[in-house]
């Protein structure tokens, strides 16, 4: 490739990534050369501005045609735009949390690292959404993972933080290995790493040995990527890591990282296995053949997440299990494989992003003040800070999936898909509904603490600006999308033709 062709490439489609990348570089340099006495918080605001800029750049591409550069390794289609927007939303909110994060033992010394690592992780996730190639997918994934490892352990002198990072690295390493192993088989059977080319080659797959191998690769990929989703059977790291990691990082892991996980899972499963035939051309694709396996994973995830959450006394751990459960719900949507799958996953992730980040904002305030992460620290919150308690109440209600909130519409959409699918997933949807009821127990347990119990101390809580922003966005968003979900649906439907673009 000559310099000329290099220049002729349509680099503009990578504008959002470049913005983030540039700002990372700037932040690194600033951090190096700024006087030590200067508050690094300003860098956080720069990061936020960068994400907003990236968001604008992404939004500008919405509605455009499918574009790809570098031999289709990087592509812009509706799918990538939709999910990139989600990631950027999540990212900006997490950064808002991060600039307001001031634990007692302090992260001031590496505050700047905090911000650009966040941005780097975000960049990894963004690359994942736009990858059309296994290699770029893998690079994006690892960029996200490795920065997350560091982020989890960023409180260097905090034992739990170290431990959570260590656990994260080891599990992450194993999961990467399993995923890669699966990928290597897929590559071996197609001879290419480009996803669409793979799909083209696998359409006519008929050799039963190859099918067998490919299916094993499918299982390996699913299990390996389950790590990112925190879905069964690769969910067990989540509680420990969530508990130990700094709260903004936990929020990041539970939202951005999870969205990225779904992006890569959908991308690979749909393009590769959605076409890989089982018995020659025109036969049932592997993905449909393996639907029940996905269903089992989804069911196990929902059950484990919700049931074990009942036993928790630590708020972050509880939210870890809750996020496992939500991954299960999302897997139900994925399992149904209906036409509105993208809509429902995207919408649910949006709702989940809002409610979970909002909840973590409050958790951050409470845990910072209390110095611990026990659920009991929420006692009497309604007395101490009624607005905070009511906001948390609304977010919990949304998480539990009560009507009037985005969480409900999201669940409704998933149910609809599960029942609409042919064959309908009655059992899976029923498990989802039943475990949702189980979830009332622990969500309302927090409510009990907040509203019914007397406070341990009556000290007032001050809400930093960043937290306030997140809370307002989260609460207003949750309710707005609960009452007028068509805002989101119409946006999706009018501007993003995911199904049409996905395989172009």
């Amino acid at each position, binding site marked *: 490739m000559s310099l000329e062709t290099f220049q002729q490439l349509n680099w503009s489609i990578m504008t959002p990534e470049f913005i983030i990348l540039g700002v990372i570089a700037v932040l690194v340099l600033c951090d190096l050369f700024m006087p030590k006495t200067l508050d690094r918080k300003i860098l956080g605001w720069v990061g936020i501005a960068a994400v907003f800029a990236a968001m604008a750049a992404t939004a500008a591409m919405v509605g455009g045609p499918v574009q790809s550069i570098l031999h289709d390794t990087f592509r812009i289609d509706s799918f990538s735009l939709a999910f990139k927007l989600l990631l950027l939303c999540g990212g900006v909110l997490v950064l808002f949390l991060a600039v307001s994060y001031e634990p007692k033992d302090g992260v001031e010394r590496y505050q700047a690292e905090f911000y650009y690592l966040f941005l780097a992780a975000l960049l990894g996730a963004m690359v994942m959404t736009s990858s059309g190639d296994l290699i770029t997918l893998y690079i994006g994934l690892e960029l996200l993972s490795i920065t997350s490892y560091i982020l989890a352990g960023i409180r260097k002198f905090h034992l739990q933080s170290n431990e959570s990072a*260590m*656990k994260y690295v*080891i*599990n992450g390493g*194993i*999961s990467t290995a*399993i995923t890669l192993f699966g990928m290597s088989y897929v590559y071996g059977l197609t001879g290419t790493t480009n996803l669409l080319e793979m799909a083209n080659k696998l359409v006519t797959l008929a050799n039963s040995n190859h099918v*067998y191998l490919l*299916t*094993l690769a499918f*299982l*390996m990929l699913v*299990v390996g990527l*389950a*790590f990112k989703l925190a879905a*069964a*059977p*690769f969910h*067990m*790291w989540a*509680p*420990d890591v969530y508990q130990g990691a700094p709260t903004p990082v936990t929020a990041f892991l539970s939202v951005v990282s999870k969205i990225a996980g779904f992006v890569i899972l959908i991308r690979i499963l749909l393009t590769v296995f959605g076409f890989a035939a089982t018995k020659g051309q025109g036969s049932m694709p592997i993905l449909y*053949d*393996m639907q029940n*396996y996905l269903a*089992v*994973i989804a069911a196990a995830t929902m*059950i*484990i997440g919700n*049931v*074990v*959450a*009942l*036993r*928790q006394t630590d708020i972050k751990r509880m939210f870890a299990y809750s996020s496992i459960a939500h991954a299960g719900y999302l897997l139900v949507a994925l399992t149904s494989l209906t036409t509105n799958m993208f809509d429902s996953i995207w919408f649910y992730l949006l709702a989940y992003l809002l409610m979970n980040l909002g909840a973590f904002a409050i958790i951050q305030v409470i845990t910072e003040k209390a110095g611990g992460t026990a659920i009991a620290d929420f006692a009497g919150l309604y007395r101490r800070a009624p607005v905070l308690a009511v906001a948390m109440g609304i977010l919990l209600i949304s998480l539990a999936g009560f009507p009037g909130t985005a969480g409900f519409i999201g669940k409704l959409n998933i149910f609809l898909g599960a029942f609409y699918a042919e064959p309908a997933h009655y059992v899976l949807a029923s498990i989802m509904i039943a475990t949702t009821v*189980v979830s009332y127990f622990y969500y309302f347990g927090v409510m009990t603490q907040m509203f019914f119990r007397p406070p341990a101390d009556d000290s007032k809580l001050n809400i930093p600006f960043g937290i306030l922003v997140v809370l307002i966005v989260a609460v207003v968003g949750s309710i707005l999308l609960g009452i007028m979900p068509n805002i989101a649906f119409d946006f999706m439907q009018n501007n993003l033709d995911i199904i049409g673009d996905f395989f172009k």
Partner: protein
Amino acid sequence: MENAWLIPLFPLLSFLLLLLIGKRLREASAYVGILLTLASLVFSILVLFERFSEPTYMAKVNWLTIGEVHLTAGFEVNQLNALMLFIVSLVSFLVHTYSKGYMQGDERFHVFYAYLGLFTFAMLGLVISPNILQTYIFWELVGVGSFLLIGFYFYKEEAKAAAKKAFIMTRIGDVGLFIGMILLFWQTQSFEYSEIFKAVEAGSVSNTMITLTAILIFIGAIGKSGQFPLHTWLPDAMEGPTPVSALIHAATMVAAGVYLVAALFPLFLASKTALLTVAVIGGFTAIFAASIGLVQTDIKRVLAYSTVSQLGYMMLALGCGGYVAGVFHLMTHAFFKALLFLAAGSVIHAVHTQNIEEMGGLWKKLKLTAPLFLIGTLAISGVPGLSGFFSKDEILVAAWEGGHPVLFLLALIAAFMTAFYMFRLFFMVFTGDARSEQRDVNESPSVMTLPMVLLGILAVVAGYINTPWFGSFLGDWLVDGNPILGAAHIEGPAWIMIAATVVSLAGILFAYFIYGKRSIAPDWLSGKGDMLHTVVSNKYYIDEFYQMTVVAIVTGFSYFLRLIDTFLVEGIVKGVVGFVQGLGRTGAKMQSGQVQTYGAVAFLGLAVLAVIYALTGGYLR
């Protein structure tokens, strides 16, 4: 007659007025009640006289629509209704008046009058109803009025228990009526009496159904009229103020059962079995209650058992086909039993006890009450010339001519017993010496005695409207236009009348010798059969029997259900919750904090999925 519907509304007005402003009116409440019942009485008399010359009047309006069915409410004035209206409003008016004196000084005076108003409203409504549903509605309201009045002295435990018992026992009967009524409806598509009779006559209802519904309805009558085996509430009901006993538990409400059977007489006539049931229950109750009455020592209880017994008489009459006899006795009994109760009230008012063993020698002290009581006693005993004689004679004739010699014999024995215990009562209360210290025994005020005098006159003369000698005016009128109800007057052999007279006189004499002249020791009889006496004076242990069976079974069953509720229902819930929590505990325990376990679980998961695939999808496909 078009305005007959106003009759029940006056007492209702009285009830509502007294509820709202009674507290301010205090004793003046009595005037509200008396005036309004007087208005009812006047209207009733007018209606009664109008009915002599005019045919039955009926009016109705739509009350409730159920799909295609329109249930109506309305009123009807036929012979029986008109007569009942008169009896009820008369007795009610008299009792209202009497109570002014009797209840003097009670702090809930106005409440008493309000309740009386409610009851009178319900009773008048009951007798004016043109359909069985409306009858049932008022039937229940009457029960409530009775319940409230029995429990008027609510702070007395006995009154509370008696009120409760009265309500529940009658309710048991009511359910019979309820079922019977509904079954009849589905058979005839109507609640109207006239429609029902038409359907029965037309034969569109099967015989079994007629018998079943008739007996079910009769169960309602059993409850209300205190017939065996649902009679136990009536004696206990004497816990209420005495005027109430006179009004409700002698003259009117308890007669509602008889009235109901009379009102539905064509239905009963259509089923031999039902009729026989009525007769047998009536006959048995008559002698059964009379035998208990022999040994009671509470003045009101004696009268109560006497009431039960007399109601049995009426049932017997109806059961034997003696429609006129039954209704006739219903009327005369209303007068003389109300008289007896009011007189007994007067006695109680004077001596402040109800125990006849503590009374005696009151004849001289109660110059007016005593003779009136004697008139009542003579009337109920069936001494010739008084009202009770004529009506009782009719019943005996009806039983004999109806072909029930055994029942006839029972009735005769009951008549003897009645005469005996009534005179026992009379002698013990009014003759001899006072058996306990009695101070300030004074005759009651005239507001109490006047009603008694009026009733006394009626107790004597009421019988003459239907006699074998001077013509059966009442009978002719009652069956006029309804030949199905039977003959206006059944001509019986003369010996029956003689036998009745002999029997009642024998009873009186017997009582005189034991309690009047005391020439026979009172334990002459009771001493002979100690066991029997104990059994009888304990009312055949029926209350105890119910307590041990029905109540025990219900309570036991309830506790059994509670076991189910706590262990089975709750247990399953606890089990499910426990299972989920146990699952959570296991899950949490597996989360050991060992990072390698986590990896192992993930790999294990992969392995399991792969193995399953290998077995089902790969090699085994």
